[in-house]
């Protein structure tokens, strides 16, 4: 296990982590402020990726594609917030899970109807492709490095939004006591729509960015959604800081586990048994991590005291 390979895998884990953070931040905001579990978040991720792929196919510009992803996902988010989500705030979690599950079905089949079942192509732009040599002789793809940079700047941006702007203060207050800020004169419906659209835009951006290195296909949002839920549960629902810590933890665990576990098993098992046992355990690893975190801290690492 060379140091170079390890460093690369750490960077891969970091990249997975920050993209998960971008996805999870929206999810945790929506839950923290509105108390709503949104299973359709994965579909918004998919909408962003499809919008980006469609626009990139039409115009050839990656930047326009990203803007389109943000806009399309935010619009879709605002639309479903006004039509469906608004009626779910007072309902219990089961109803929210089911209604948003229904939205997943509608979005997935609708996308399949419009775009067909074959994956779309979204290519990394030329100015972001190719490797970059990092100190230590590590060659790492420029695009993934860019993703890490974008993810971290979004984290900083969200922190600034939440702690320094008026909207951020309203969000914090809303997380604390929804009824109070409504009584104090803040337009709650507008706040909720904005928060939901913000979360949706972030998901769409993540979808577009990751869509360039994976494929853009129907159902691409589901695995990421599950991971995002694991992240916010580990980090603590409602906490952006928790989402960042949780996301990086999950990203590193998943990536490094997949690489290191088969190697570790090889110490006392033969090669083929080691790789199958190792990869089986690696795929279960983040769920085992989540189970342990929940048993130790039932509301997550930075979650509210139960």
């Amino acid at each position, binding site marked *: 296990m060379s140091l170079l390979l390890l460093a690369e895998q750490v960077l891969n884990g970091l990249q997975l982590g920050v993209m998960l953070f971008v996805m999870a931040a929206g999810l945790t905001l929506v839950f923290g402020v509105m108390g709503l579990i949104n299973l359709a978040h994965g579909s918004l991720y998919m909408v962003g990726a499809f919008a980006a792929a469609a626009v990139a196919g039409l115009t050839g510009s990656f930047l326009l594609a990203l803007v389109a992803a943000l806009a399309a996902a935010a619009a879709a988010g605002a639309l479903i917030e006004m039509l*469906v989500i608004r009626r779910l705030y007072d309902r219990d979690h*089961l109803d929210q*899970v*089911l209604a948003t*599950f229904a939205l997943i*079905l509608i979005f997935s*089949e609708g996308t399949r109807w419009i775009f067909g079942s074959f994956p779309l192509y979204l290519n990394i732009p030329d100015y972001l492709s190719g490797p970059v040599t990092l100190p230590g002789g590590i060659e790492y793809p420029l695009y993934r490095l860019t993703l890490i940079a974008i993810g971290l700047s979004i984290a900083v941006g969200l922190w600034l939004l939440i702690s320094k702007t008026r909207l951020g203060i309203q969000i914090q207050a809303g997380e604390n006591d929804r009824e109070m800020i409504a009584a104090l004169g803040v337009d709650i419906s507008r706040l909720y729509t904005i928060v939901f659209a913000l979360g949706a835009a972030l998901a769409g951006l993540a979808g577009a960015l990751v869509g360039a290195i994976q494929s853009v296909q129907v159902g691409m949002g589901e695995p990421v959604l599950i991971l995002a839920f694991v992240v916010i549960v580990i980090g603590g629902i409602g906490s952006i800081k928790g989402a960042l810590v949780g996301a990086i933890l999950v990203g590193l665990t998943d990536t490094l586990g997949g690489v290191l576990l088969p190697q570790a098993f090889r110490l006392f098992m033969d090669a083929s048994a080691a790789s*199958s046992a190792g990869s089986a355990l690696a795929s279960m690893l983040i769920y085992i991590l989540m189970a342990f975190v929940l048993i130790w801290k*039932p509301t997550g690492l930075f979650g509210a005291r139960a």
Partner: protein
Amino acid sequence: MRREPLFNAAMLLALVAFPLWAWSADEPFLITLATKAAILALAGVGLNIALGLGGLVSLGHASFFGIGGYAMGILASHAQVYDPILTEPFVLNGTKSMPVIWLTAIVFSGLAALAIGALSLRTTGVYFIMITLAFGQMFYYFAISWPAYGGEDGLSIYVRNGFPGLNTLDPIQFYGICFGILAAVLLFNARLARAPFGLALNAARQSPLRVETVGMSPYRLRLVAFVISGMITGLAGALFADLNRFVSPTMFSWQLSGEIIVFIIIGGTARLFGPVVGAVIFVALEHILGGLSDYWHIYLGVLLLLIVLFARGGLIGAIAGRETAHE
């Protein structure tokens, strides 16, 4: 309230009449559809004990469905090639006898439910939903990467397992077995809901604090309910695998967990025949709409959305009116 028992009786009658009609009209495919509905209904009835009666929203019940399925798959696959499962420290052969397979499925899903429940029931609300989902995913990924029993490709069992005295390959006879089990479990569920345990569980769902002050432990009540629920869903899994003669990791998928919850909601949460109605509607829609359009999931999604938003008691709630013991 009087309408509900009438509706339930009508439903039961339909479940007997429809397959008999299909048998006389020589439509074995329809009998198989009815069997699928009955088995999925059984899975839903299992979950309903935890969800409807206990208020435990488990998004990981496919874990037990899959465990039941794989119990059947492992036992039958070893039996069909006459290869023992274990030779050390004692010989353990596979079997193709349904009662033995059912017992194994029930025991193992019960044990899994005990383990999962003991850990998950320490959490509440959305954390409980997530941790049950996580366990489902763990089983799913484990099944995918376990090459001995097919991995991602799944496991085929060529001949349906045997039940003493019946020809299980005959669709109507296999339906009779599944319907018999469903009816027995429904009876059990009805008695359970009115027994002291069921009443205490219902109380724990509504007000856990009060239940504690009376001296009972909500945790233990919920754990027992979760285990019973897991055992029933596991049995359904074994039957499902027998129906399809195929086991695959998708039996563990979270989408399946979601679908089981969907049956319950369509029919009516906590209603005795809720999952039955839901499963029948789901299978009927899949068959009818699936024939009309490739994108029938959209219609299912819209139906589900409408029910969640506007028809809170599900179909039975709309027909039979509000129940008094469950809001």
